[in-house]
């Protein structure tokens, strides 16, 4: 992690991932601490994302930091043509760490190259969203007691789903077995299948989504099949109700199985699944707070020992 910035999940080793998860566990034990008292966190959202921003700002506030920033680039000088570099240079005069979401791919990496303060990538276009992946990993470990040797069934939009691609990359360290369930139009791109082969990750692909296709799963990771992703709307009409997780599909699943979703959900998980003990997506979102507390502390140079509850 160059200058403690967090840009991408791809370059983190298994040890680095586990280290950050261990930091997250300390914040789960005790989320309200004044570790960052006197620090200033800037949240620059060049693209609106209420849920991610609230999670980062909550993390900063619970650690005693103060927060500045913008939630809508329309009110900033970037609409006047100010470059990202100039915005970053200006804000880095004020803040100790910059959390940024940008609509352009590679924006966060460029920001780390010009910024004297650490950058935390809160999503850059369809490229990377590393804190989402960290909270996914945290949740997998929390519910399964481990990250290694798990059966993970990923359902829905595997073509455009940024969270799906990052999850595959992050899990490469932990010998997973993936089942990719998607309509043909939204199946996993060839480059990621090649990636799995290069990394010796075993996977199966299927278009079928029913109780038998999820029977062996330890984790079911649901994503949304969006209408606007289809070139052929007839195809969308054919599959739109296929990739919905219904409560009656959960009868044969393993006891330890948990259902995750990056949220927001629309209709891909039926409402009555929320009451099933396998549902875990709201707790998963809560874990985002702990992991963002960990990421902010790590970016500011605090170590795992610094943040341990019992020293």
């Amino acid at each position, binding site marked *: 992690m160059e200058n403690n910035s967090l840009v991408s999940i791809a370059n983190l080793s298994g040890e680095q991932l586990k280290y950050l998860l261990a930091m997250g566990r300390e914040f789960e034990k005790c989320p309200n601490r004044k570790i960052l008292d006197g620090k200033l966190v800037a949240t620059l959202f060049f693209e609106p994302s209420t849920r991610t921003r609230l999670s980062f700002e909550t993390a900063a506030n619970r650690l005693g930091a103060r927060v500045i920033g913008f939630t809508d680039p329309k009110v900033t000088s970037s609409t006047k043509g100010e470059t*990202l570099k100039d915005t970053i240079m200006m804000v880095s005069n004020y803040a100790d760490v910059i959390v940024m979401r940008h*609509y*352009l*791919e*590679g924006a966060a*990496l*460029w920001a780390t190259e010009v910024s004297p303060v650490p950058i935390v990538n809160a999503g850059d276009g*369809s*490229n990377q969203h590393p804190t989402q992946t960290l909270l996914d990993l945290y949740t997998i470990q929390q519910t399964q007691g481990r990250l290694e040797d798990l059966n993970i069934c990923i359902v829905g939009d595997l073509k455009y789903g940024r969270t799906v691609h990052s999850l595959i990359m992050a899990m490469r360290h932990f010998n997973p077995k993936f089942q990719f369930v998607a309509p043909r139009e939204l199946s996993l791109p060839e480059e990621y299948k090649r990636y799995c082969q290069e990394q010796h990750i075993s996977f199966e692909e299927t278009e079928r989504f029913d109780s038998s296709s999820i029977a062996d799963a330890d984790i079911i990771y649901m994503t949304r099949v969006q209408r606007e992703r289809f070139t052929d709307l007839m195809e969308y009409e054919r599959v739109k109700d296929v990739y919905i997780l219904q409560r009656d599909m959960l009868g044969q699943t393993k006891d330890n199985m948990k259902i995750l979703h990056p949220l927001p959900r629309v209709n891909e998980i039926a409402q009555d699944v929320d009451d099933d003990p396998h549902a875990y997506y709201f707790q998963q979102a809560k874990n985002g707070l702990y992991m963002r507390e960990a990421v902010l502390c790590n970016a500011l140079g605090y170590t795992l020992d610094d943040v341990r509850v019992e020293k």
Partner: protein
Amino acid sequence: MSKQLQVAAIQNGTVIDHIPNEKLVEVVRLLHLERLPNSSIMIGYNLNSEQLGHKSLIKVSNHYFSKEELDTLCIAIPNATLSIIEDYQIKEKRAFDMPSDFDNIVVCPNPMCITNNEPMPTKFHYCADKKVLKCHYCGKEVETDEVRFTK
């Protein structure tokens, strides 16, 4: 077969040989040969070649190209050869070595890449196993024969 040179020799300078005919105009443009007022430049087009059937070559007197210019040629004409001439003798002859990094030479084909929206240099890494260039910023991969150059 006659050993007579198809293009006259130069005393000192650079020879770029084994250029595919269809790449000649692009190479002339990439090297900005029109900006070399102190060099005699000889361009041979559609010459006989044992290796290629037909080829082009460029001889530039009293001029040696920069690393950046030669890096550009690595992508445009990877199988060409470069000779440095001193006093009519070949002082050095070599193939173009593909560098691992290309700084501000290649345009990223991804319109949503930060490099296409911010006044900044581009950066690409060469992946030898896949024979593609990969954008340092957005990760987009581009085949070497589909590259667009910054200049």
